[in-house]
Structures are given as C-alpha cells and as structure tokens.
C-alpha cells in the first residue's frame, strides 16, 4: 500500500475539517468513559475481596468439582427426581395461569383506552410496578411464612410475581388495540361490557396467549430455583445435593433441568406459532 502524496492529505484536511480536527471534548469522551468504567471495575474487584490467590484456588477447586460431576448419575433417587421435575413443571404452569387470570381484569383498569382517567389508572400502575420490583425468590420466602414449606408456596410466589408483569404487558397489548372495532360495537348499540367483550378481547387474546406461553417457558426456569429457598420442585433437590456435595447427582439434576427447559421451549414456541402466526412473535 503506497501512502497518499502529502499535498493530497493537506487538501483532504482542508476539505473535511470536522473529520480531522474534532474538538478535544468529543475525542476525549470515549477514552474517559472507558477509564471511568475500568476504575469502577477495579475498585469493585478490590472492594469485593477478589484476589488472584483466591481465584486460582477457587478455579482449581471448581475443576476438581467438575471432575467429580462426571459421569452424571442419579443413584437410586431417579423416581424422586422425576417427581420433583413434575412438581416444577406444575408450579410453572399453574402459577402462570393463576397470574394470567387474575391480571386480565386488573390490566383493563390500567389501560388508557379503557380507563381514561389518569387519577384512577396511576395507582393501579404503581401497584403493579412495586409487585414487579420484588424478586420471585423473595415472594417465595413470604408465602412460605404464610402457607408453609412446599410447592404450593412456589405456585403462589410465581403467581404473584407474574401478576405484576402480566398486568403491565396485558395493558400495553390492550392499549395497542385498534379503536375502530370498539367504535363499531358502540355504533351498533353495544354497552361498555359488550365493547370490551366483542371489540377488544378478540384483538387482544391472541397476543395475550402468546405472552402467557412465553411466561410458562420462562417460569420453568424460575420454578427450578424457588426450591432453593424451600418452595418445592427440583430446586430443593438440587440445593440439597449441592450442600451434601453429591456432585454426580448435581450434574444429573442440572442435565434434567436443561432437557426440561429445552423441551418446554420447543413445545411453547410451536404452540405460539400455531396461535399467533410466525410474524407476530415478539
């Protein structure tokens, strides 16, 4: 590659001053951001007790653990694990459905085109927001205090955490619905309830069904971990086996979770395509 003659570069500089003479502030912005990000990162490493010796010791320990995990082997507790897996799937399905059914009427209250008055809508929205701000695991701990240890607490935890998410998503779907069909019902003499039933719901239900399926999928993952705090399912078994250092069983349980999640993914994406068609999958 031959360099350009120097008079050409000079001409270029003259022609595009904004490329060659960027002000210092814009040239310095990127390096400054990077330096600041790195500084916080290093401060974090120091503050959180990272040290090379701990890291090396931990990694070698981790390597040893991975060796112990092979081959995955359930021992004699395969039936118990299968039951736990079924429990996890049940928790995900039931929790999501309860949340969806409870969230539908509330989401109507939070939608702008159903409830026009902001004074009434605002508290509903903030209420949903604060439910969403609390993690599923925390809800599980609260429900354990109320209904005791076991999968039922898990169902209720998933139901209430998703209730917040669904309320928001559904109300957005309702707000995106077309006004014309609702006006058509009104023009034909329908009441407010008729408008919702025949004008809004047929537009909104497929979208909602897609979202519910998607949540069943993601809740299968959540349901695997709420067992860690004692709310039933396969997470309970997993946490126990990790605590007693039965690594072969641990790796088997992780494999089971991976397979189950992949299977649910596959089924629900199939159903989603069947319900709303390929184009609308968000």
């Amino acid at each position, binding site marked *: *590659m031959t360099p350009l003659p120097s008079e050409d570069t000079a001409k270029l500089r003259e022609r595009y001053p904004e490329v060659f003479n960027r002000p210092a502030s814009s040239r310095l912005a990127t390096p400054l951001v990077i330096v600041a*990000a790195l500084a*916080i*990162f290093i*401060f*974090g490493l120091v*503050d*959180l*007790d*990272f040290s090379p010796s*701990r*890291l090396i*010791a*931990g*990694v070698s*320990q*981790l390597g040893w*653990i991975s060796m112990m995990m092979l081959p995955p082997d359930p021992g004699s507790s395969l039936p118990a694990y299968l039951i736990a897996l*079924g*429990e996890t*799937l*049940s*928790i995900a*399905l*039931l929790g999501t*459905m309860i949340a969806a059914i409870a969230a539908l009427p509330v989401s109507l209250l939070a939608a702008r085109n159903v409830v026009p008055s902001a004074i009434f809508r605002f508290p509903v929205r903030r209420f949903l927001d*604060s439910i969403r*701000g*609390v*993690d599923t*695991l*925390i809800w599980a*701990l*609260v*429900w354990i*205090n*109320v*209904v*005791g240890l*076991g*999968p*039922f607490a*898990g*169902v*209720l935890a998933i139901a209430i955490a998703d209730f917040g998410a669904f309320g928001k998503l559904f109300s957005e779907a309702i707000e995106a619905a077309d006004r014309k069909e609702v006006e058509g019902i009104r023009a034909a003499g329908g009441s407010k309830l008729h408008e919702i039933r025949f004008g809004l719901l047929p537009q909104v239900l497929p979208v909602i069904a897609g979202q519910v399926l998607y949540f069943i999928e993601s809740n299968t*993952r*959540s349901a*695997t*971990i709420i067992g*860690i*705090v004692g709310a*039933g399912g396969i997470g309970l078994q997993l*946490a126990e086996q*990790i605590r007693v*250092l039965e690594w072969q069983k*641990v790796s088997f349980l*992780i494999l089971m*979770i*991976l397979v189950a*999640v992949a299977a649910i993914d596959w089924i629900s994406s199939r159903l989603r395509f069947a319900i709303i068609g390929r184009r609308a999958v968000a």
Partner: protein
Amino acid sequence: MTSAVSILPEQQLASLNEAYRMAVRRKRLRTLFATALFGLALALAAIGSEVNLRTLFTYFGNFVSYFDRILTLEDHTRVWTNFSEWFWGWQKWLKLLGETILISYVGTLAGAVLAFGLNFLAAENTSPAPWLRFVVRRALEFARTVPGIVFALIFVIAFGLGPMAGVLAIAIHSTGALGKLFSEIVENVDMKPVEGVRSTGAGWLSCMRFAVLPQVTAGYASYALLRFEINVREASVMGFVGAGGIGQELVVAIRKFYYSDVSAILITIILTVFLIDIGTGWLRARLFGGEARA
C-alpha cells in the same frame, strides 16, 4: 337511492349455510377439545404441586396480616410514625446495597467483555469455522440456561462464601445471555464493509475491528445496560445462598421474623431497582436516541 339485495336461489343457499355451519362446528369442537386438554393439564398440575385451597383460605388472612405486621414496629405503632426506628440499620443496609450494585456492575462488565470476545465466533456470518461456532454456541446456551443462583450455589462451595461467588455467577450467566444477543446483532450487520476491508488483504481480526465493530457498538452498549438492570435484581437475591449483597440481610430478617426490618429492606431494594431502571433508561435514550432501544 335504493338497491336490491339479491337473494341466492334456495338450493345454493342451503348448501352454503350447511358448509358454514360445518366450519363453525369444527372450530368450536377444536376449541372445546383444546380447552378440555388444557383443563386436564391444569388439574394434573394442581395435584402435582399439592395445591390446597383450604390451606389458602385458612391462611390467606395471614398473607394480608403479614403486610400489616411488617408495617408495624415492635412498640405496635405504624412504621412511618418513627423513621429512625424503622430504618435503624440504614448505614449497614446502604453499604450492603452498594455492594449489591457493585456485584452486578462487576459481573455485568466481566460478562459483557467475555461475551464480546465470544460473539464473533458464534455469529453465523463472522465465525471462522463451523465447528468453533457450534462449540461456542453450545457453551453460551449452557451458561444461559443454568440459572445464575445455581452457579452461585456451586461457586460458594468452590470460592468460599462472599460476594466473589456472586460476581462470578452473574458474570457467567450474563456471558451466556449477552453472547447470544450480541451475536444476533452481528448477524444483522451490513456485510459490504467487511468485504471492503477484506479486499484490501486484511485478516479476520482487522475485518472484525474495522468493518463489524463500528456497526455494532451502540447495540452492544444498549444490551449491556439492559442486562445491568436485570442483574441488580438478580444480585439482590444472591445473598440468599451466601453470595454477598443485601439478600443475606433480607433472608435473615424474613426467617427470624424481624418484621419491620423486612419492609425497610424491601423498600430500599424496590427504590434502588426503580432508580437503576430510570437511570439506565435515561442513559440509553441519551446515548443512542430512540432507535437503538431494544
């Protein structure tokens, strides 16, 4: 102006009506069948997860009164009448909250850097070899599917109790999630600049640096910020398994029935999550305008 509605001859009408009724009946039957199947699945699920409505009805009062209790101080007054008593541990909690945010920051950054290193290998259009792409993709999938808290449980044993395990767990989980999103961005880039750079005789690394990278950085930063937001929530529960942050304090308060502490810690967590949401939302809007918001 009048117009006549033409009525079809009797026979034709009858056959059309019949076809219509058939179609409706078939559709209804299908819906009914699907509903029955779904109901059956729900019933099975209810048995499987030991749903007991009687327990719920008996103890639902407990759930409501739980919120009553966490909003009451030990001297039976409402919490908001005495802030200094309610937030008695605010110094400790703020410090732990700072630790939580730091955990998610360090974890997200480490995960983003790792994902950045791997995503060009996982994307269909830039991967140097199919076998490499396959291996990297499976690895990312594994890191994404295993929940972060399961990694934390294992890391607590390998690295000892403390925030280090939490950081590493979040970093690994973020690598999986971000690696996939990043590689999807790379798959959508315009390939013409890549061809241009390659035609000058540049190697793979130069192609990535000068042709792909300028197109994707905005998207990367946007996704990384979004991930940071999610990781703050995640880090707030890492303490449940002993991996640092405010979760440890919360789980102790819930398990030992320190009611007013529960509400105080929950409120600080919710407020922090709100603030981080708003902050990253603002930052993303400012950095990339409206278009890059995923």
